[in-house]
């Protein structure tokens, strides 16, 4: 590195763009993401919006890095504020190296809002946009000129990416946006952000093929590749993107998407479809999941396969529709009245979302029961860079399905045949001589209503037996960090990336921990309880107020005295420093206690 060039290589960059809802923060972040991806970086983006269409301070955050991260970093390098209110709102995430760029069209930043160390620059973004283009929204492209210069992007790179981005929108729009970029570069000049003198040295690294994808998209895609052909939904944030993706793509695969009049209709349409043998999915979040409870019990009793995505958001009730939380776990595991088998899977990143959805489709038909995918707003909606998915890995297994030939070889076909593994062979309507009755009433082997006590016990046991026989096939946990360590961390969904980053930081600080990522939440796997009981202490990162995850573990045999609950339920996405701090504090106390003893 030569003396005159003190710019570091770009390795880990966190940029937040924030403004009033409708200001287009997401657009700026997306543009930046695509430029940085061109430069071989991995990116992760997050949005923080309100449950309203316009107004209120919203934000989009981007992390770009040279390795692999599935979370936003602990502090922000650059804050771009289209609205002055966005500055105090995001102050907590800034540190002394942070730079703030804000729109001063409405006035300068009041003194004292930021510490002295933080460099803040004002530029009349909105004013210039309105003046030059008569439309406020061009402030996005203007800001981009400044952002690029601050970061050290070559002007040409910016132009090229603008061209490719706006190509589809016609020459007029392209021109305006390029002009806006030029205005931005002009403002940059005024502020002394000179080309080639940005924060980083940005080199063109070779771009490996990779995907930029959200959890919701990955689940929708996984469902499709696994042969999913019927999706019924009712719009609800943050699950709607699953439907959106499928509306666009599913017909190309021969599938169909129906928007129902409500969630009751959605799950019952799905049941109707599932009864025909069609692979079927619904996606929703808390309020919808609550409404689907009766249908879910029906799946259990009728032994009907269905995949149900729950993109959890802040609860209870309408709660905080756009905020991440993991507080439906109890409902997923214990919802529906009566006893019935179910599977709850918990992916940690979009890749996991894809493959676990494939597994969910197979498991649902193999074990003829509801399979839930416990996601959360952040996992569902944040975009992450992943290696291209391996579609060849997708194998279809429809379980004990009988076709006409199979049936013709039987003396008797019984839809709910008692079997050792609890799984009965099934036909689909249309199969000659495969007629059956499927019902939510207790029934005999043929599906005829029965309240005979002996039959009842056998039927319940048969259904419960499935929970046992499926155990070997259920997705196993991810294991990370120092696998010998007696300090464990557990977390699911969006905490996956957070805990992985925390592991690194903890290691830097002399604490070698290991991360156990349960990918099957229910039925509880022995490995999970063994992991907990094999550690001295296990930190459970529980994104809810009640400690629902930890509660499940204890109920299933984990030693409560080993568990420390890190409860996070303020509606913000948890960051790795919260985990690090919690572990370090607890470890220090433990050490302290030992010293005293």
């Amino acid at each position, binding site marked *: 590195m030569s003396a005159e060039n003190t710019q570091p290589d770009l390795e880990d960059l966190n940029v937040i763009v924030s403004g009033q809802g409708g200001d287009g923060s997401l657009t700026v972040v997306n543009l930046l993401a695509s430029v940085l991806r061109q430069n071989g970086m991995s990116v992760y983006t997050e949005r923080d919006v309100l449950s309203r269409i316009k107004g209120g301070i919203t934000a989009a955050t981007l992390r770009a890095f040279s390795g692999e991260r599935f979370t936003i970093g602990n502090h922000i390098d650059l804050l771009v504020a289209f609205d002055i209110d966005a500055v105090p709102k995001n102050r907590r995430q800034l540190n002394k190296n942070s730079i703030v760029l804000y729109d001063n069209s409405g006035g300068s930043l009041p003194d004292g809002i930021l510490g002295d160390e933080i460099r803040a620059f004002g530029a009349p973004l909105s004013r210039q946009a309105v003046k030059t283009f008569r439309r406020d929204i061009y402030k996005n492209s203007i800001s981009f000129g400044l952002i690029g210069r601050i970061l050290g992007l070559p002007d040409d790179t910016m132009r090229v990416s603008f061209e490719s981005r706006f190509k589809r929108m016609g020459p007029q729009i392209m021109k305006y946006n390029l002009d806006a970029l030029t205005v931005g570069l002009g403002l940059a000049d005024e502020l002394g952000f000179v080309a080639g003198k940005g924060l980083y040295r940005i080199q063109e690294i070779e771009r490996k*093929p990779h*995907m*930029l994808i959200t959890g919701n998209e990955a689940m929708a*895609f996984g469902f*499709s*590749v696994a*042969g999913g*052909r*019927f999706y*019924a939904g009712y719009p609800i944030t943050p699950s709607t993107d699953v439907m959106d993706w499928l509306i666009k*793509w599913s*017909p*190309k*695969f*021969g*599938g*169909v998407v*129906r928007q*129902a*009049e409500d969630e*009751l*209709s*959605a799950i*019952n*349409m799905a*049941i*109707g*479809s*599932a*009864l*025909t*043998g*069609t*692979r*079927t999915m619904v996606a929703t979040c808390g309020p919808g999941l609550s409404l689907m409870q009766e*249908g879910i019990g*029906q799946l259990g009793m*009728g032994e009907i396969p269905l995949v149900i995505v729950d993109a959890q958001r802040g609860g209870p009730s309408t709660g905080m529709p756009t905020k991440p939380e993991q507080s439906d776990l109890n409902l997923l595991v214990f919802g529906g009245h009566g006893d019935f088998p179910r599977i709850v899977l918990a992916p940690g990143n979009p890749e996991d979302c894809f493959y676990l959805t494939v597994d969910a489709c197979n498991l649902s038909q193999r074990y003829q029961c509801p399979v839930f995918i416990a996601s959360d707003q952040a996992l569902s909606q944040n975009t992450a860079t992943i290696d291209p*998915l391996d*579609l*060849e890995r*997708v194998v*279809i297994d429809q379980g004990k399905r009988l076709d006409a030939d199979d049936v013709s070889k*039987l003396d008797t*076909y019984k839809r709910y045949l008692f079997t050792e593994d609890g799984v009965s062979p099934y036909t*689909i*309507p*249309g199969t*000659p*001589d*495969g*007629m*059956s*009755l*499927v*019902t*939510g009433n207790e029934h005999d082997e*043929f599906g*005829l*209503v029965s309240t005979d006590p002996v039959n009842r016990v056998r039927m319940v046991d048969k259904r419960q037996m499935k929970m046992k026989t499926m155990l070997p096939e259920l997705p196993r946990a991810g294991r990370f960090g120092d696998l010998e360590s007696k300090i464990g961390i557990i977390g699911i969904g969006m905490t996956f990336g957070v805990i992985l980053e925390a592991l690194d930081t903890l290691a830097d600080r002399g604490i070698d921990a290991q991360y156990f990522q349960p990918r099957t939440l229910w039925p509880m796997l022995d490995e999970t309880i063994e992991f907990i009981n094999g550690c001295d202490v296990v930190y459970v990162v529980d994104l809810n107020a009640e400690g629902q995850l930890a509660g499940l573990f204890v109920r299933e045999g984990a030693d409560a005295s080993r568990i420390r609950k890190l409860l996070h339920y303020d509606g913000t996405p948890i960051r790795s420093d919260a985990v690090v701090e919690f572990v370090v504090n607890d470890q220090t106390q433990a050490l302290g206690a030992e010293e005293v003893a």
Partner: protein
Amino acid sequence: MTKTFTPARPIWCAGCGDFGVQQALENAMKNLGIEPHETVVVAGIGCSGSLQNNVRCYGYHALHGRVLPTVTGAKLANTDLTVIGVGGDGDGYAIGGGHLMHTLKRNPSVTYIVMNNGTYGLTKGQASPTSPNGYGENIEEDLDPILLGMSIPGSTFLARGYTGQPAQLLELTTAALEHAENGRGFAFLEVLSPCVTYNDTYREWRTDVYDVEQDPDYDASDKVAAFTRLMALRDQGRLPIGLLYRGERPALEEAALNHDFPPLALQDIDPSKLMDKYQQALESFMR
């Protein structure tokens, strides 16, 4: 031949109208040559909701009130099937009322037969949406679901039968099944099916019914005229029966499905079959 379930003996009270509905349905299916193994009967919860146990074909006992979303899903998933919904007035008009409205609007090619007895039979005689004001604790006017159907754009087949007139009931059931079989959309057939135990209306209904098919002036193809006539009959305390409205509108499955593919349930879902398309989707994330 492989043995499957033996259809159950009906569990209805002697004299229950539902016997007649079942008979009409079985005969209509037979007359039309509808194959039992290509038929799914989806039943609601109620006395009426045990009909599927008694018929030789695929049967599904839905959740209370959810017959219509279920049949819609089943039909879309496999258009080769004959999909028939059956249930009670409580099931279909109370808890299921919203779905009725939306299914009429959607127009999937399925048949829906409501055994209307103006009461909740199975739960012992509470008022249903079609119970008259004064029945038990009821203080509401009775709903006429056919009138409701007239008000919904998209409805294509509205009929009412009466178990006391079995020949006509068979005809109407046949017509309803045909409407759906021919892909003309949603065939809604309400059957006046008395509950002898909790609301024995045989005598009343015998005199109240008014067969529009006997009325040369009745025009079942004109919604407004039909609505007008039905309202007038209602004012006279008459219960119109017959084919009350038939219209044309593309069926849901026509509009919703990609017809380049076989029915969803019958597709070969081995990933290799569509690998190019999946790859295309994958690449859309790589841009």
